């Protein structure tokens, strides 16, 4: 099966500024790919190129088997794009806005009415269907944006910061919607700088800084291989830990480093020696309330790339 998105050396320059620098990106069909990076990293420019709204300076790309530059209309029928700065026609109602989109996509009126009712219901906007969009909150507009994107039943969704600036309930609804899309076999590319939210739903992530993709893979892969350099990190909760215990642990074979933060001891080791550590803590007369191997959080990986060492 060919990838949904494939780019080779994709480059976009605005004068002297290199917005996207020889990007090689591959997104498989049916996966949720998190496109992460700080503001101004070139995420939006990349999405616009994938949709054929901006022409690349150099490089090649293929989206759902089409060349976005040569066959933009065929592609736009299959791709739903949610822009970061989302705008609707303020003096039209939510439903009128969606009907306009449906018309532009050649969806019949009857079919459009059916789909709109279903989408607005799923996004909790049924009551606001006949209200003017000018009365909508930011969160409602964002949800309406999701409805607008899903209306054409796209194979590929390009979502630019879909959860920025909205309340937790709205975020939950949008994330649920994205996961549901994957269940239906759609491919989703989510660009975001909000790591925690993306982490929960993404199959793979790519970290994008200053126009370059500096890492790509699953979060666990990025954490272990890229950051920790194949080390295991074990976290043990010992409420009555003393410096003496830390010393004892440091003396164990395979332990590289021990650090204490509150009741938690963070132990870096060469292999998974949780059993040995637990035994040592308990036999030394301390209370062990919990021991676990560390789950890598995206913000650590992220912090590593932007601020040097992760702060854990």
């Amino acid at each position, binding site marked *: 099966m060919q990838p949904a998105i494939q780019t080779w050396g994709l480059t976009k320059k605005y004068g002297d500024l290199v917005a996207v620098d020889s990007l090689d990106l591959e997104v498989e069909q049916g996966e949720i790919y998190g496109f992460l990076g700080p503001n101004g990293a070139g995420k939006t420019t990349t999405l*616009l190129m994938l*949709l054929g*709204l901006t022409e690349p300076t150099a490089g090649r790309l293929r989206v759902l088997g089409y060349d976005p530059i040569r066959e*933009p*209309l*065929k592609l*736009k*029928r299959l*791709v*739903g*794009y949610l*822009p970061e*700065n*989302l*705008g*609707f*026609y*303020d*003096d039209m109602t939510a439903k009128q806005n969606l009907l*306009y*989109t449906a*018309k*532009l*996509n*050649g969806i019949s009126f009857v079919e459009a009415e059916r789909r709109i009712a279903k989408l607005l219901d799923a996004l909790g906007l049924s009551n606001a269907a006949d209200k003017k969009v000018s009365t909508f909150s930011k969160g409602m507009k964002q949800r309406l*944006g999701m409805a*607008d994107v899903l209306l*054409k039943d796209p194979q590929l969704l390009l979502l630019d910061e879909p959860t920025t600036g909205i309340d937790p309930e709205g975020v939950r609804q949008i994330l649920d919607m994205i996961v549901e899309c994957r269940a239906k076999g759609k491919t989703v590319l989510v660009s975001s700088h909000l790591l925690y939210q993306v982490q929960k739903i993404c199959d793979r992530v790519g970290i994008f800084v200053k126009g370059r993709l500096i890492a790509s893979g699953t979060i666990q892969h990025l954490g272990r291989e890229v950051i920790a350099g194949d080390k295991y990190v074990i976290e043990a909760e010992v409420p009555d830990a003393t410096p003496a215990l830390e010393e004892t642990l440091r003396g164990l074979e395979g332990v590289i480093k021990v650090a204490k933060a509150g009741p938690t001891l963070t132990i870096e080791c060469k292999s998974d020696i949780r059993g040995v550590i637990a035994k040592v803590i308990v036999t030394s007369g301390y209370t062990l309330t919990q021991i676990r191997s560390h789950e890598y959080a995206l913000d650590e990986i992220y912090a590593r790339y932007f601020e040097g060492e992760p702060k854990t």
Partner: protein
Amino acid sequence: MTGTLTIALKELSDYLGTKRFWFFFTIIYVAGLMAAYMGILALVQARVERSFLLLFRTSTGALPPFLFFIMYFGPLLGIALGFDAINKERAKNTLVRLLSNPVHRDAVINGKFLSGVSIITIVVFGILGIASGLAIRVGLLPNLDELARLVVFAAVTILYIAGWLALSQLFSTLFAHTSTSAIASFAIWGSSHSSGPQSLLLLLLISYQIQTPWRGLL
């Protein structure tokens, strides 16, 4: 092509719903009607030639004649319809969303132009119809020849105003701010009137006898 039509229809209903449009519509109709009334008054008073078409370029002198109003206010209508066509969509962030649907960029521009031209056509035929009605009411009946000339006049007037629409729409594509494109359009409109432009000559050419008192103005 379907995209162009969809956009044109949506824009048309937008225009008809805005206060701006009704404001200009009223001004142009009132001014045009007054001018037509003056023309008729002048023709009724004058005992010489009582030709139907003359009412559009004759006046008692209190107000400029009908033709002058069309020349002067027509461009304003064109500019009002077009100066924010594209940059307003950009400012409201609706342009990217619009273009992410399967439509070409020129479908957006053409669709908006098409709806503007429809509005211009409605206005021009409306006002000429009302003025003609007034004339017929006082007994100035057009013959077939005059009727044909009137239709040609209407067509050229629509072209003339559509030219201004195209110009302001071009500015709305080039400039990011609606105020900039409005000022640029008005600047060209203003300077074109003081420097004797070709656009006015075009209208003069079709008004086949140039013998009116306002000739000196140009």
